[in-house]
């Protein structure tokens, strides 16, 4: 078993990196994969709280790197889903406490044990981002269909290429089909046109995300959530399955082209 290491990043803050990391981790584990999620947002940790594991933290990633504890001691086993673990970030340090080399070392110790290692990147383009992508085999970039988010995503695409971790794949989050139909929101086609990278998922804006974060139960754990279904679809695409994109926006021809495009490249 040799893990695929996937870093989820964005540039812009608040677009859904942590939500995506949490939900993809659960979705992959729920389908029988052995998964560890790592929160690389040192100083502003949130993966723990989104996953509902905040009360189980004893040790964190910085403890591991500094040798204060063994790697296993920092790994929190999720009791709800088999074979899902979390390594939380430190809350009282900052991104300078960790180097890209540290991250690579920690991840290398985990590679033989897991199918997937998901790394939640902090926002920005500085040390935290560099730490998060250093061990990556694949990079997912999350954006929302808004000007500033797409602009930042574009910058990140360039940086990912520069670090030789490309090509990155795109998740469009918080899409509002009603607004797209009215012409008041960038469509999936608009965003792909501008960014020109492969799309791996479209997640609709969904109240159930807020409810699920309130409860610490990632939305893929429930049925009946459109966002949950979207995250499940992304997890399946990550595993190499061909999953057609849901046509939220009444743009059938583009969506069909996307699915074929993805099949060829995925």
């Amino acid at each position, binding site marked *: 078993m040799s893990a695929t290491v996937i870093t989820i990043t964005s540039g812009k803050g608040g677009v859904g990196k942590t939500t995506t990391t949490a939900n993809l981790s659960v979705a992959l584990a729920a389908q029988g994969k052995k998964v560890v999620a790592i929160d690389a947002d040192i100083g502003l940790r949130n993966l723990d709280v989104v996953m509902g594991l905040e009360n189980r933290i004893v040790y964190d990633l910085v403890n591991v790197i500094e040798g204060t504890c063994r790697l296993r001691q920092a790994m929190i086993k999720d009791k709800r889903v088999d074979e899902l673990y979390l390594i939380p970030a430190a809350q009282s340090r900052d991104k300078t406490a960790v180097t890209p080399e540290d991250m690579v070392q920690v991840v290398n110790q985990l590679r033989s044990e897991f199918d997937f290692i998901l790394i939640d990147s902090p926002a920005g383009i500085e040390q935290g981002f560099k730490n998060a992508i250093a061990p990556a085999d694949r990079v997912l970039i999350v954006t929302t269909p808004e000007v500033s988010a797409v*602009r930042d995503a*574009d910058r990140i*695409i360039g940086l990912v290429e520069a670090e030789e971790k490309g090509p990155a794949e795109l998740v469009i989050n918080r899409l509002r089909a009603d607004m797209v139909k009215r012409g*008041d929101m*960038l*469509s999936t086609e*608009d965003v792909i046109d*501008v960014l*020109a990278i492969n799309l791996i998922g479209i997640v609709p804006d969904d109240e159930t995300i807020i409810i699920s974060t309130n409860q610490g139960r990632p939305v893929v754990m429930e049925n009946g959530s459109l966002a949950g279904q979207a995250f499940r679809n992304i997890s399946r695409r990550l595993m190499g399955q061909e999953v057609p994109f849901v046509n939220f926006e009444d743009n059938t021809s583009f969506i069909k082209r996307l699915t074929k495009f993805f099949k060829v490249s995925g």
Partner: protein
Amino acid sequence: MGFFNRLFGRSESKSGKVAKNRLQLVLVHDRVNLSPGEMELLKDELIQVISKYVEIDQQGIEIALTNNNRTSRLTAHFPVTGARPNK
């Protein structure tokens, strides 16, 4: 058509389209790290250099920064009206 749209208080372009156009423009500049202001300076310097060799019609100069699939391209067109006087 635009007049009637404005008369009835409808914006000419839907905001989604405006967003896309603005994004395309801003990204073109972001990607080569050349602001619109810097492009003006570039244009002036190019005019200076080219004018040393040939006479150009300054009104007809077109300089554009475009993008295709993450590849950027700077193109410049200078209408040449003749030889530089006193060459």
